[in-house]
């Protein structure tokens, strides 16, 4: 190693320098501590992924209908789910409402008070809220091709955008989010949560999303079929209800 002259003396080992054995013992102790810390960190992270413990009626097939992403959020939270990957099948992607530019109306505040829920989580903000609270740690969003093209157009100028073939990654403050068309979907290598929104049910998307996910190799401990999303039309809602009923999925009441 080149070190500028004048800084390093040419002196030999000082007489009080510790013995080789002592130095190795110190090095070993420190390395052991470091390795233990890293192992503990890895275990802590993996142990923080909490699965869905299904009630009796969902034990055979963990699929249920629910109102919207906001209700899904409440179900996940009430069930104690934490640290999970979420696969979202949808034709839209909402941004949380900016409460500075669009503050809650007095009616909304009153409704929140009446329900005892003072936080503001709606279908637009639910997935973001789930990420904030650590329920979800990353998103795999699958969109019909036209919706994906639209979404890509919305974020085209973002510096975090990382384009792929039929997919793109777009982190938000380090939060991992992968958006893809069905053909470019990559099944996560772990058990996931699934949320299907009504806007999924358009031309170009697999008509039986749960069967398609299974065919892709996705395993899940809870799949929720939302019957509403912020931009779904009547036809899409009807299709979602029909799909849920056809799948024999019970309606899961969101706990408020």
């Amino acid at each position, binding site marked *: 190693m080149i070190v500028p002259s004048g800084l390093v003396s040419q002196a030999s080992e000082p007489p009080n320098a510790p013995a080789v054995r002592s130095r190795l013992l110190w090095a070993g102790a420190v390395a052991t501590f470091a390795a233990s810390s890293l192992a503990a*960190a890895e275990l802590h992270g993996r142990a923080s992924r909490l699965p869905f413990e299904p009630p009796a009626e969902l034990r055979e097939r963990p699929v249920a209908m629910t109102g919207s992403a906001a209700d899904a959020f409440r179900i996940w939270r009430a069930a104690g789910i934490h640290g999970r990957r979420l696969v979202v099948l949808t034709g839209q992607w909402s941004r949380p409402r900016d409460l500075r530019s669009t503050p809650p109306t007095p009616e909304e505040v009153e409704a929140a008070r009446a329900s005892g829920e003072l936080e503001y989580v709606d279908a637009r903000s639910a997935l973001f809220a789930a990420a904030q609270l650590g329920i979800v740690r990353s998103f795999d969003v699958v969109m019909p091709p036209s919706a994906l093209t639209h979404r890509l157009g919305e974020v085209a100028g973002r510096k975090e955008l990382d384009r792929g073939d039929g997919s793109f990654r777009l982190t938000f403050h380090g939060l991992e989010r992968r958006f893809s068309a069905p053909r470019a979907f990559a099944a996560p290598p772990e058990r996931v949560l699934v949320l299907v929104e009504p806007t999924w049910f358009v031309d170009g998307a697999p008509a039986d999303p749960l069967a398609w996910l299974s065919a892709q190799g996705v395993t899940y401990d809870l799949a929720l079929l939302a019957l509403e999303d912020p931009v779904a039309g009547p036809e899409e809602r009807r299709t979602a209800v029909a799909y849920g009923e056809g799948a024999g999925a019970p309606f899961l009441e969101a706990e408020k």
Partner: protein
Amino acid sequence: MRTVAVGVARPPFWLAILALTGLALLLRTLGLAAQPLVGDDVWVRETARNFAAFGWPDPTMWNHPRLRDLLVHASLGVLGDGAWGIRAWSVLLGTLSVPAIAVLVRCAGGSAAAALVAALLVATDPLHLDFSRQGINDVYLAFFPVAAVTALLVHRERRHPGWLVLAGLLLGLGLASKWNAVFPVGVAAAVVLVQALRGSASRRERAAELALFLSCLVLLPLAVYVLTYWPWLGRGHDLAELLRFHGAMAFETSTHTGYPGTKQVGFPGEVVGAWRWFVQPSWFVDYVPPPRAAAVPARGFFLSGVANPLAWLATLPAAAWAAARWIRERDRVAGWLLLLFLAAYLPFVLVPRPIWTNSALAVVPYSSALVAWTAVRLHERCRHPVRIWLAVTLVLAAFLWPPAMGISTRPTDAVLRALVSPLALDPSAHRGS
């Protein structure tokens, strides 16, 4: 080899260090509770809560390491969620950076006088003072790396592995404050390691020395750093995801142009190329508009940290003189202080994007050490000019303390406007901050 007797300085030196530390503490705590919270204070508090509770590193500075969140969350619990709870760690570490730089100068072979002047410059610098009184963590970088380098220099002389362990712990805490802690510590470690290897008698000794350095200065800081992400890992993330998260952090940091709602690049004087820090006056002005807090006066609240120009503008001449001394006379003290200054400063200069001046706090201890050492050496040749320079520097610093504490007076505001810019105290210039 020149031996520096670290622990046997005469008592008056340590008494003087104690007095300067007391002065630093006094300046950093005077009226602190009454100083209104600036935007960064509020965001620091919210981010500490979010990170501790949910591992969520927002609303501010998600791309920086997270030690601050853990510390501030702890102090919020002990001292409440007001000014002291938010700022206690900045006060503490800002104060400790004063004795730390003095000890570093001594350990590098500098005289007691140089060490004391360096400590005096750090203790009284208005920009350092300003950020020792805020929750934002830039002033942590004026302590952890300096203390780590000091531990390395002590290890160089005493060769007890405990000093390397201490250096590694401090490096880990520095890295967990901001990544640029690695530069001065890394350079110092490289030099100390080379010396240790050259002094080793056999290959076996060299291998043991190398193993000790690697474990203490690579593995240990890495472990400390990773452990500060414990709440984030509690979101279900594993180490591979932590690595990817750091890729995103590095990308954001390298392309950062301000967080939404903060001052943007081009804000006069504060977001500039780092090469300007020591060639023109540097400052950072926080502004709180009137409605945001009851303690805020009608015209708004200004917190104006102006780097002492008489100390800062002396840095590059001092560096040039130290370089000449190092090259011509192999002056080891000059070499050490110059090397540490360059290691801390050049990474900022080489970054193509503008940098907020609060980042300069990571360089201030080393620039102060260089200036102090140069002043003391020059004092041997011409006493009066150096004494006059030091006196005027302190008087100017005293004029700049009130604005750095958020206190507005006509004389100090006039100095501020003249020294910085007429815009400094103009609320319209701070829109979006």
